[in-house]
């Protein structure tokens, strides 16, 4: 199953796997952008002094965290066309990954904001900053320091979760591995290969984030009162 011939067969078709990798990267990057945007907005809504907006945050977080990602993606793929909205497969994948991961990021952002000392908001208000300005210039930059480690986990999760695109013929790594291996009846090499390729994406992401985090710690110095 892992014989030299199997690897040779795979190597001949390397383009297929390269295409899958490219698609996975594309879906992950776009999904990440959507997840971050949704996460920041929804996370901030979780702390604003306007109750209906906080409800919106709770609904979003609870609903999308507590239903399976695959169910959500199948709804966008099979359900939305019935409602007259037919999206390209990549868009469905990005939407699924972005909305689902955004719910986790929203909760991380909310907790990060709440971890910033209350005096910071008061100092900002006392200088005439409006709520949204205080968030932008003073609270969120500090929250991000606490947020970085759990946020990295979400980035890594999103990259791995992008494999659900294979269920809707998303031409990602997982999809190509499925198709190629069932055609060639060579399962072992295909999945070992894509596991290695996923690692090539996730490990640098985690390392980069850790380095960024260390640099932030270093410049701000020690304790924050």
């Amino acid at each position, binding site marked *: 199953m892992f014989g030299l011939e199997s690897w040779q067969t795979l190597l001949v078709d390397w383009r297929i796997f390269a295409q899958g990798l490219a698609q996975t990267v594309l879906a992950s990057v776009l999904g990440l952008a959507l997840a971050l945007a949704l996460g920041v907005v929804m996370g901030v809504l979780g702390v604003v002094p306007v109750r209906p907006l906080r409800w919106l945050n709770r609904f979003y977080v609870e609903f999308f965290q507590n239903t399976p990602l695959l169910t959500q993606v199948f709804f966008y793929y099979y359900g939305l066309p019935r409602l007259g909205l037919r999206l390209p497969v990549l868009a469905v994948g990005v939407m699924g990954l972005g909305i689902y991961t955004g719910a986790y990021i929203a909760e991380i952002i909310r907790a990060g904001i709440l971890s910033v*000392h209350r*005096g*910071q908001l*008061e*100092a900002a*208000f*006392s*200088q*005439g*900053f*409006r709520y949204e*300005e205080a968030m932008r*210039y*003073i609270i969120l*930059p*500090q929250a991000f*320091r606490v947020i970085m480690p759990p946020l990295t986990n979400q980035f890594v999760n999103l990259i791995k979760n992008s494999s659900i695109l294979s269920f809707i013929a998303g031409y990602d790594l997982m999809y190509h591995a499925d198709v190629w291996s069932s055609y060639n009846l060579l399962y072992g090499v295909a999945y070992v290969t894509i596991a290695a390729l996923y690692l090539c994406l996730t490990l640098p992401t985690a390392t980069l984030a850790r380095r960024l985090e260390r640099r932030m710690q270093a*410049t*701000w*110095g*020690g*304790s*924050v*009162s």
Partner: protein
Amino acid sequence: MEVGPLIEFRRVNKFFGSNHVLRDIDLTIPTNQKLVIIGPSGSGKSTLIRCINQLERVSSGQVLVDGVDVTAPGARLAEVRQDIGMVFQLFNLYPHKTVLENVTLAPEKVRGVPPEQAAETARYYLKRVGMLHKVNAYPAQLSGGQQQRVAIARALAMKPRFMLFDEPTSALDPEMIGEVLDVMTGLAHEGMTMVVVTHEIGFARQVADRILFLDNGEIAEDGPPAQVLDSPTNERTKSFLSKVLH
């Protein structure tokens, strides 16, 4: 020309739950006054000063700043607060910004001052508080006294109409209290209107032209330092002063 009061409290009450923190406070503070508020902890001093810039909303009554009712619904608080400098017990410097950035941030983002001009103004005030040598440091690298002096420069850089000090030396080690009080004394001598909540009776005697003694949410004593500190009429004032003056 008749000048109206700068700050005015009209029958202000404040509750925290069932706790009645301020009771029917009537208070008028004219421009240029150096008002020091003393009193036991829990007497409502901090709540009172925080009502002036509405970090604390009142439960009833009105607070007027320069004739503007800041307690009215829809009051433009952000605009009013630009002109009120505040210094906090825990400094509340922005830890992710350098000393210089701490002082330039609000002038640039709130007032729209060009960066070079904001930096120039910041250096001027940092020099005044003796912190010019630390412009590139982060707050965590400074002592408490240094942080508080930067906080004063940060407030002054907005060119406020008056300054609020909420127990500015209470979180400082004893050897750092002097450097902060010196800066505040200098500011007072230049004619800045100041409202100061403090336990530093020596500072109050030296700088204040009026002292309020707050007790259980009420103004128990109100007058010049000599009167309030040396011949108080109220029993609670006497007992409080005997404790803090030893």
